[in-house]
């Protein structure tokens, strides 16, 4: 299929239009409960954005990195300090600069990828996770010498207008995520993405074609960290509305890793599917617990069941569909497409007989 606009095909543009109508018109008119915005839609968009970051470094460039939450923390605290100390930057400016600060950390912690790979790289990137959190905890300056440990995030003000209601914050997250997703798609489908995938699939051949391993890997780490940084800033300012290093612990990194793998490595839409699944699944499980079993099952047991099912799903996906839910969805669509014409053929052939 030929791209119509930028790198998007006609089908992509139709999908985009449908998503935009759904998210801009349908959702705000039909969903009025705040719970949906504050607990599901906003974190979904933020985490999907962070998962795109993880996809770039892991799914596209094939570097096993585990420190997304560390870069998110860097982005979140950079945002807090920028708004506090450089108010002239404005919200959007601060968001971009905090992404760039996270990207600088990404470059620093991406350097080991030149020497180590696979599981060893994963251990090396863990350093970023612990180092960034430790740094924020250790030096009071980052938290503006707040002794309570939890700082309230500043209100979001864009061009003099406050964005403080859940709906307004949802729109902020939606706008940022949409723009960054479209840019990520352009990169992934263009020469940049081809270099990433070439390094992932066969690094020695990539090098013999003139792809610099140093530049490609470091670039992927930087862009990935930029996405995570912006996601972290949004996560803190729109979802948590507070800043504490503990919110960005290793558990969040693992969560993003799971979203990436379950959604489908090396796909952009997989980031959204994976994030939705991991966020909605516990909600669904709780609803089942309350409505079917009427609270007979203890909440702690439900959360344990959740862990068990996640673990099981990871193993099942790794064995049967390593490309995750995005690929599963493609396959289902493919089956439908082949099924429909065959059933009409059947009907016409039956019609001929009678």
């Amino acid at each position: 299929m030929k791209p119509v606009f930028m790198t998007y095909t006609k089908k992509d543009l139709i999908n985009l239009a449908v998503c935009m109508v759904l998210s801009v018109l349908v959702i705000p008119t039909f969903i009025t409960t705040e719970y949906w915005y504050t607990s599901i839609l906003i974190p979904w968009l933020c985490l999907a954005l962070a998962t795109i970051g993880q996809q770039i470094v892991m799914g596209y460039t094939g570097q096993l990195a585990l420190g997304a939450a560390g870069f998110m923390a860097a982005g979140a605290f950079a945002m807090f300090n920028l708004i506090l100390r450089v108010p002239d930057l404005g919200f959007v400016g601060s968001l971009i600069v905090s992404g760039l600060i996270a990207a600088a950390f990404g470059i620093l912690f991406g350097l080991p990828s030149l020497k180590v790979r696979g599981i060893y790289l994963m251990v090396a990137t863990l350093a970023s996770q612990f180092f960034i959190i430790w740094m924020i905890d250790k030096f009071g300056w980052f938290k503006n010498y707040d002794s309570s440990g939890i700082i309230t995030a500043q209100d979001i003000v864009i061009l003099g207008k406050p964005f403080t209601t859940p709906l307004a914050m949802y729109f902020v997250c939606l706008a940022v995520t949409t723009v960054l997703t479209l840019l990520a798609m352009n990169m992934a489908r263009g020469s940049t993405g081809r270099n990433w995938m070439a390094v992932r699939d066969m690094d020695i051949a990539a090098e013999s074609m003139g792809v610099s391993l140093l530049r490609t890997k470091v670039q992927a780490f930087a862009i990935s960290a930029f996405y995570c940084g912006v996601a972290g800033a949004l996560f803190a300012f729109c979802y948590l509305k507070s800043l504490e290093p503990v919110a960005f612990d290793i558990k969040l990194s693992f969560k993003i890793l799971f979203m990436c793998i379950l959604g489908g490595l090396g796909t952009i839409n997989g980031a959204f599917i994976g994030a939705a699944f991991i966020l909605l699944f516990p909600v669904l499980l709780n609803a089942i617990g309350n409505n079917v079993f009427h609270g007979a099952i203890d909440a702690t047991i439900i959360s344990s069941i959740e862990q068990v099912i996640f673990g099981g799903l990871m193993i099942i996906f790794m064995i049967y569909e390593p490309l995750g839910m995005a690929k599963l969805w493609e396959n289902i669509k493919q089956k439908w497409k082949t099924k429909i014409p065959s059933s009409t053929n059947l009907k016409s052939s039956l019609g001929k007989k009678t």
Partner: protein
Amino acid sequence: MAIERKFKIGKPILEVKNISLSFGGVKAITDTSFDVLEHEVRAIIGPNGAGKSSMLNCINGIYKPQQGTVSFKGKEIPNITPNLMAQMGLSRTFQNLALFKRMSVLDNILVGRKLHTKTNFLEVAFQLPKVKKEEKINRERSEEIISFLEIEDIKDTPVGKLPYGLQKKVELGRALATDSSVILLDEPMAGMNVEEKRDMCRFILKVNDELGTTMVLIEHDMGVVMDISDRVVVLDYGKVIGDGTPDEVRSNQKVIDAYLGVEH
């Protein structure tokens, strides 16, 4: 050769001087020298373990020889890396297929256009006009190569799903896409049937004939090599035992001994 060549064989483009390479105590190549002339088809042959692939890896910078030098286009290259050689106009294929398995045939060949891609990631992200222009040129060139190799019908298939013979063709295509002046082919016909071999020979000669690309190939099959190459260098136990035209090599006693064995 009776037919007049469009690109006449010229001066040496690639010179290998006194290369020695060892892995620990194992000597892979000992004091080997030979040259490759511009626009020729040059073959490196030899029995298993003769050091043919190691030789290519030295030329391309994957291995660093302990001694000796490689000169390319008249310049001696002190710190060879695969990347540097690619930039200077030397491309290659690999013995055990080093394709990008999850990418389509077209994308694989497009990676070969890397050195003709000057735009950076930000320009790509925003799809600036110059990115579109460059991408268009690269795609057109890749499509040309695809039709040249007669693989149009599989261009959107992930290469990992293709049969071996076709993968070898894609790898040749990727090397061609770089528009390099020299292409090193590491056993381009290994594991192919007679028909596929004949096909591959045809493509190698066609590339050499139409584009004037200098081809350096390693091959096991003596028959094939003798048919298509201008000059042959024979390695055995990491040493040159014969060098010259196919006829000269065929009548060289040392070569016959190495290939057929010798009575002691």
